[in-house]
C-alpha cells in the first residue's frame, strides 16, 4: 500500500518540478492578454450592459460544451477530434426527433447517441492505436453523409418541450447554467476520480501507463464516451436554441473548441490541463468576439485573431518545453 502511494506521489511529483519552471513565460503572456482584454472591455461602451452580458453568456455556452468535451480527449493524449462537432449535430438531431416521447427520454437518447458515436471511435483509437486524427476525420465524413441519408437536411422538433431550455432563470440563460454545471462536473471527474488520474497518466505517457498496469484502451474509450456525452449536451442546447437540428449550425465548432482548450492552458501534448481552464479559454474567445463586434471589426478578423492566439499558445508551450 505504502509503496503504491509512494509511486503515485512520485508520478505526480515529477512533472510539477519542470512545470513550475515553465510557468513564468506562459503566465506572463496569459496575464498580459488578460489585462489587454479587460482594458478593452472596460473601454468599450456598453460591454458591461445586461443585454451584452446575456449575449456573451449565450455565445459561450453552446460551443463551450464541445470545448469541455474536447478537453477530455486533449488531456488523454489524443490531440483533438475532428468529428466532435458532427457528433454534436447528430445528437441534436436525435434529441429533436425523440422529443415526441418527452424531454427526459429525448435527452437520454441524445446522450446515448453522442456517447456511442464517440465511444466507437475511442475503441478503434484506444485498442488498436489507430491515429486519432485520421479516425475522427473519417468519422466526420461518415456522420455528415449518414445524417444526410437518414435524416435529410433538417430535423424539426417532434414536441414543444425544448422551449424550456431556451429560457432564463433569474435572468441567466439556462444554457449558460448547463455549461457551467458541466464544467464543474467534468472538473470533479478529472480531479477526484480514479479515471481522471488514469487519464492524465495515459495522456502524459501511454506506454508508461500501460506498463504500470493501466488499461489504456479502456481509459481512452471512457474519455471518448464522456466527450461524446458532453458534446451531445451541446447538441441539445444548439438544437433548442435554433428550434431545429441540422449539420450546419455546429459546423466548425471543433476548431473553436480546440482553440479554447489550448488558449485555456491545456497542453496539446496531453497529460495536463483542466476543464475550468477550458472554461476560461472559451470565455476569452467569446470576449474577443464580442469586443471585435462592438468595436466594428468584421467576423473575419475574429477568426484570424483566434487562429493567431492558438499559434502563439502552441509556440509558447513549445518554448516552455524547450527550457525544460
Amino acid at each position: 500500500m505504502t509503496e503504491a502511494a509512494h509511486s503515485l506521489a512520485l508520478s505526480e511529483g515529477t512533472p510539477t518540478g519542470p512545470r513550475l519552471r515553465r510557468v513564468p513565460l506562459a503566465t506572463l503572456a496569459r496575464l498580459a492578454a488578460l489585462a489587454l482584454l479587460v482594458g478593452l472591455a472596460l473601454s468599450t461602451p456598453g460591454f458591461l450592459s445586461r443585454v451584452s452580458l446575456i449575449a456573451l453568456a449565450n455565445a459561450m455556452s453552446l460551443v463551450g460544451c464541445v470545448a469541455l468535451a474536447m478537453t477530455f480527449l486533449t488531456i488523454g493524449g489524443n490531440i483533438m477530434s475532428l468529428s466532435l462537432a458532427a457528433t454534436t449535430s447528430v445528437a441534436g438531431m436525435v434529441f429533436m426527433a425523440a422529443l415526441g416521447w418527452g424531454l427526459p427520454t429525448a435527452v437520454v437518447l441524445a446522450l446515448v447517441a453522442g456517447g456511442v458515436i464517440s465511444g466507437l471511435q475511442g475503441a478503434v483509437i484506444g485498442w488498436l492505436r489507430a491515429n486519432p486524427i485520421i479516425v475522427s476525420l473519417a468519422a466526420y465524413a461518415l456522420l455528415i453523409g449518414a445524417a444526410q441519408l437518414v435524416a435529410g437536411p433538417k430535423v424539426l422538433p417532434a414536441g414543444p418541450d425544448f422551449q424550456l431550455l431556451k429560457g432564463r432563470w433569474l435572468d441567466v440563460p439556462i444554457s449558460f447554467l448547463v455549461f457551467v454545471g458541466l464544467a464543474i462536473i467534468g472538473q470533479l471527474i478529472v480531479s477526484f476520480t480514479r479515471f481522471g488520474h488514469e487519464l492524465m497518466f495515459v495522456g502524459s505517457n501511454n506506454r508508461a501507463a500501460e506498463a504500470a498496469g493501466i488499461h489504456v484502451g479502456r481509459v481512452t474509450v471512457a474519455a471518448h464516451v464522456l466527450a461524446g456525452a458532453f458534446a451531445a449536451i451541446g447538441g441539445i442546447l444548439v438544437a433548442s436554441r435554433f428550434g431545429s437540428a441540422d449539420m450546419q449550425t455546429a459546423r466548425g465548432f471543433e476548431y473553436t473548441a480546440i482553440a479554447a482548450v489550448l488558449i485555456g492552458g491545456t497542453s496539446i501534448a496531453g497529460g495536463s490541463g483542466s476543464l475550468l481552464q477550458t472554461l476560461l479559454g472559451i470565455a476569452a474567445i467569446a470576449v474577443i468576439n464580442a469586443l471585435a463586434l462592438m468595436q466594428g471589426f468584421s467576423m473575419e478578423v475574429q477568426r484570424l485573431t483566434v487562429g493567431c492566439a492558438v499559434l502563439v499558445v502552441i509556440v509558447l508551450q513549445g518554448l516552455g518545453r524547450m527550457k525544460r
Partner: protein
Amino acid sequence: MNAFADDRKPLVILAAVVLVLAIALFLRGIGSLDLILFSILQYFATIGPVALGLGLTMIAREFDISVGSTMSLAGCVAVIVGQRDPNLGALAGIATGVAVGFLQGVLVTGLGLSSISVSLGALITLAGLSYVVTGNQTISLNHADITQAINAPIGSVFSVRSLFAIGCFAAAGVVVALTRVGAELTATGSDRVAAATAGVRVNRVVVVVFMLSGGLSAASGVFLSYGLSVASPSGLTDVLVPAISAAIVGGVALTGGRGSPVGIACGALTLCTLNAGLNALGVSPTMQQIILAGVLFTVAVVAAPRLNRIWMRRTQNGGGAL
C-alpha cells in the same frame, strides 16, 4: 508498420479497383471511355498534388493537417491578384503556400514542436486569413479564356491541370529515385537521430518537405480556382479525406520512413477511379461521401499498429501450413 506499406501493393490495389470499375462499366454498357478517363484525371489534378505533399511530410514522419486551408487560401490569393494579371496571381498563390510551409517547417524544427499542433494552429489561422483577404465573399476570376484553357481536353483525356499534376509526380518520382534526396527523406522519417548522425541535415529535410507540401497544395488550389473561375474562403472541395486516404493506400506509413511518389500516385489514382466509377454507376453524392469515408475509416483501422501486430502474431502461429 502498415499493412499497405509494401512496394507493389499500391499498384495491385489500383489494378483491382480499375478491374472492378471496368467490369461494372462493361455490365452497364460503356459510355464514353475518354470522358471517364478525363474525369478521373481531372479529379486526380485536384487531390493528387495535395496527396503528394501530405504524403512527403508523412514519409518524413511529420503530418501537415493544414493542406486544405493552404489550398483554399492560395486559391483566394491567386484569384484576387489574378484579376489583373493571372500569371502573377498564380505565382502569388503558390508563393503563399511555399511561405506558409516554410514557416511551419521552421516552427516544427526550431522549437521541436509536434507538426500536428503547428499545422493545427496554421489551419485555423489560414482559414481566418482566407476570410479576411476575401472579405467573406466568393470571388470570381473574370478571365473566361484562362478557365477554358485550363480545363480544355488535350489529347482527349488530359488537361493543363492534370498534366501539371502528373508532372509534379514525375518530377518527385525521379528526384526521389535517382538522387540522395530520396534516401535522406526516408532516413529522416525512419530514425531521425541515426539520420542526423549519418550526416543527413534532418531539419533542412523537414523544412523542405513542409515547403513542398505548402507549395503543392497551393498549386492545386490555384489550378482548381482558376479552373472553376471562383475562389471561396470556405474552400471549394473537401480535400483532406481523399488526400490522406490516397497517401496511406499508396503505401505511406504513418510511422514514417516508408512510401514513394509512385505509390502515392497509385493511391490517388485508386481514389479517383473509385470516385469516377461511383459517378458512372449513378451513385448519389451522399452515398459517395459515405463510401469514401468508409474507405478512410478502413484504411485507418488497417494501418493501426496494434491490429498489425495482432495480425502478424496470428499468421506466425497458424500460418505455417500456408
